[in-house]
């Protein structure tokens, strides 16, 4: 499925900046439970990695993030942020979204005021607020966000499984149609569409808390 997405050049530059691995959020330190799934043997090659990440995109935390991104600007930001925070499936998921959200908000402030609510900010809310302040549309933001999410976890697997760089890229290539399909659904979503069925991913995030040895914070 291809959809034409137009974006002003200055907005494109901001979007690339916000979701670049070089944007100082510290995203490289979080595996979203994938480190545990690799240690337990659930994810062991590019096939299983594709299955793991597809599920997160289609009916997992990444899907919920996409629905939340869609709701920024339509719902009151403070209550949307509370909802996002309350959806954390475990202590480390809460740590991940608030640490990324906090660093993102601090860094994005360089480019303009985000008017975020007081206290902790969930990562998708910080990103959504920054994009919204820059006038970046959800048509551009959501696929870029999902791509950054997938690419970051592919790089975790490249290091830990380990996978060759080419295998990692082939996983990303296979996820691209998934990202497009999920984006289309997310664009037509409301908060009623929040919902996941990634039981074993949520459980992996919980079990990561006592995994030894561990490299990633989540």
């Amino acid at each position: 499925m291809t959809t034409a997405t137009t974006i002003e050049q200055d907005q494109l530059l901001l979007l690339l900046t916000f979701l670049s691995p070089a944007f100082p959020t510290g995203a490289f330190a979080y595996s979203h439970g994938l480190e545990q799934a690799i240690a337990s043997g659930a994810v062991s090659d590019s096939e299983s990695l594709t299955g793991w990440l597809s599920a997160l995109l289609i009916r997992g935390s990444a899907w919920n993030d996409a629905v939340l991104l869609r709701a920024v600007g339509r719902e009151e930001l403070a209550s949307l942020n509370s909802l996002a925070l309350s959806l954390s499936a475990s202590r480390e998921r809460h740590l991940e979204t608030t640490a990324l959200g906090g660093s993102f908000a601090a860094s994005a402030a360089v480019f303009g005021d985000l008017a975020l609510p007081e206290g902790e900010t969930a990562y998708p809310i910080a990103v959504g607020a920054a994009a919204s302040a820059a006038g970046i549309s959800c048509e551009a933001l959501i696929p870029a966000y999902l791509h950054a999410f997938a690419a970051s976890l592919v790089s975790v697997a490249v290091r830990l499984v380990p996978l060759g760089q080419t295998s990692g890229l082939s996983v990303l290539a296979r996820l691209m149609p998934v990202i497009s399909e999920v984006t289309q659904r997310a664009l037509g979503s409301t908060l009623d569409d929040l919902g996941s069925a990634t039981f074993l991913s949520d459980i992996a995030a919980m079990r990561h808390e006592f995994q030894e040895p561990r490299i990633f914070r989540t």
Partner: protein
Amino acid sequence: MRAIIERLENREADEAPLTARLHAERARGSVRLSMGTTGLKTLREEGSLKIRLPSGSSQAILINTAGGIAGGDRYRIDIEASGESRLAIASQAAERVYRTLGPSAEITVSHRVRDRARLIWLPQETILFDKSGLSRRLEVDLDRESFFLGMESTVLGRRESGERIREIAFRENWSVRREGRLLHSERLKIDGMLPRGIAELGNAGAFATLLLVSPHAEALVEDCRALLGSRSGVSAWDGRLVIRLLEEDGFRLRKRLLALFPLLLPPAEIPRVWLI
């Protein structure tokens, strides 16, 4: 009539029994119960939901007289505990949700806990049959010092009877507020084929989520962890403890739950129907 009843009752197990089918798509039931310092304050029942509260007891038993849940059924349960009261609620039996061609059944449960009261919500398993539809909502409103333990457990058909389920419409939404602030949400959604992937259900036939909100919740993580199987997890943060259990079937799930209850509750608060 008797012959018809027998014929209907001999149908496949995933068809609702006669009592449920006669009321097909229409069953309604509601219960409102409130406990305070001096015991029972309010008790109202309507339709096919009943609640039994033996006098002097802090254990209540919820009974659905409709003989299972069919598409379009609606149930509502409102519980309030205040004035340092304690109340443990469980259902009398596992609840079956039958195949539907129409809308999902809806169950809305609302709990309000105040003034250091303790509320324990431990219904027995919900058994989902193939092509069943259930939308379950749990709303919990707590103040700073109250205690809440809630759980929902779900069994995907009965494997030991050789039933296979492939497709369901299932939603489970929890919204738990403490001092008015949204503390914890669950949004579980399965719409269509069971998600059997390695990040999803795998080959599990039963699952449960437990939530404990109490000032001491975080101290229990290590002990809970020791009781869990290899496909379950526990985590605690910000005054709550969450346990997610996946097991091969309902029998194994029940065994795990029965091992966990004594860790989370004093013996007098474990609903007796779970122990029979």
